[in-house]
């Protein structure tokens, strides 16, 4: 029964919203707008539910793993303080502090550190003596060479080659990837997500 309600609600709301992209009708637009507005509200509550679930999981992990309680405690404390401060801060002073003093330098530094690991990962991949790795290396070397302003300054034709490569073979590949995503990737992803989100049958419904 639970699954029936879920699939029925998903089908009706999905069809109404999808139809509003194809057909222009006042009542359809209104119904679709109300459903989308409602979905946004549900998304907000889903965020709260997710946070509650994550907090429960961290709490369980701390119980099972006392050595890590300091890091978990610190993460939860930072989460709670930030949540309260940003929600209560009407003037934007403290949310500005969190953004400028913590998020911008911290996440930027994390991305900068990731650069070294990305180089290492690429070396491992390109270092394989396989034809596919050679093609991958060729793409990387060509892109890095042609994006170099020094080469463009000393060899003006480099820019013409770069533009031709981007506009002809690479655009063809990326268009095909895009079409593949639209035709196969997104529908498959959506199907998997709908099945994954479906509620599990309750104890009474199980045989």
């Amino acid at each position: 029964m639970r699954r029936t309600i879920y699939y029925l609600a998903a089908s009706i709301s999905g069809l109404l919203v999808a139809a509003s992209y194809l057909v222009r009708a006042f009542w359809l637009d209104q119904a679709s707008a109300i459903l989308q507005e409602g979905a946004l509200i549900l998304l907000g509550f889903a965020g709260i539910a997710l946070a509650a679930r994550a907090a429960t999981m961290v709490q369980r992990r701390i119980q099972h793993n006392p050595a890590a309680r300091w890091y978990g405690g610190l993460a939860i404390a930072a989460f709670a303080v930030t949540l309260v401060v940003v929600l209560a801060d009407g003037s934007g002073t403290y949310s500005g502090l969190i953004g400028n003093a913590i998020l911008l330098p911290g996440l930027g530094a994390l991305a900068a550190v990731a650069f070294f690991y990305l180089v290492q990962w690429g070396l491992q991949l390109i270092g394989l003596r396989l034809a596919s790795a050679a093609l991958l290396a060729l793409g990387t070397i060509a892109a890095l060479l042609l994006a170099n302003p020094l080469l463009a300054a000393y060899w003006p034709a480099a820019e013409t080659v770069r533009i031709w490569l981007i506009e002809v073979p690479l655009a063809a590949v990326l268009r095909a990837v895009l079409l593949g995503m639209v035709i196969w990737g997104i529908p498959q992803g959506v199907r998997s997500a709908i099945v994954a989100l479906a509620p599990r049958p309750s104890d009474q419904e199980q045989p």
Partner: protein
Amino acid sequence: MVICPTCKAHNDSKDHRCSVCGGNLAGARLRVCPNCGTPNLLCDLYCIQCLQLLPAAELETAAFLKDSSSADLTPDPLAMVTQGLPEARLDFSPAQTHDPEDSAQPLPPIPAESRLPALLQLPCGLRLILVLLLLGACLMPMVWRDDPQALADQAVAEVLEPIAPNSTVLVAIEYGPAYAGELQPMAEALLDGLTERGTVSVLVTSHPLGMANLERLAAGHEGAVNLGYVLGGALGLRLMYGQPSGCMPPAASRAPLGQMVVIAQSPVGVQRWLEQVQSTQRMQVLALVSAQAELALEPYRASSQLSRLYSPASLALQEPVQTAQTGWGVGLGMLLVVIVAGAVSICLLARRRGAL
């Protein structure tokens, strides 16, 4: 079956997180080298012992039976790459249908020096040269005193050229704090350029952490209107800007829908504007994106859905800026040397060990 390293619960081999405690199971999965029998992490391409290329099918499961208290609460993905296998002793159960405790076999001891990934197994001198080259590459723009203003001015000249003076422009800030180092100077220059033209900038973001950048930009530009965060990604944009009869909140109804500039870190940030808003409103969209997103968005530029598409990397190639970007060019050259030299060395090393 995979045994959770934290709570020892049995999970399905397809699970990524423990069904009981939610712990990460990535570290509990191993790939066994068919050549020497050494267990490797799933993320390893080569065997850490013999550098044999690991086949995808050799997926096995393991449990950390001892010292599970040393496991970290916030699993660090970088650690999997740099440290190879964890310090904890491993137990290995090849038969997925059997009880792991019955079929557990002890693993062969792993020499400490072979717990390193392939790059760090290179000879010390070569490794040092590669690391020094990488570090040197980061310092090059400072050593050559690259002029960041030249790049910013070029961004203003190229991206804002089609925008009429004294108009109103929607500016979408679709990047998080991690990419501020690459995109924030351009965004600042663009807003300055718009203000100089007498244009009103209306700022908005659909990136959850984009507000940190947006608030900083709005604080530095008094004339800019801050619409804030649009929740729900594609859904939020469709509702607020794409649906003619949508319930627009009062702030969103002030957003102009004639022309817009999207500053984004990923292709998705631009795609959702094109798919949900531009396809119904037929507005002119200009994009300034991270170097990682430029190529992926090329089909949209070719189909004229994007009027202009630039990244800091492609702007640096424009003629007036080239000379002010010598350090960036030298740094990219050094990066290229690291990649070619490192890949060739790994290849030669693997060949010497007879793995390939």
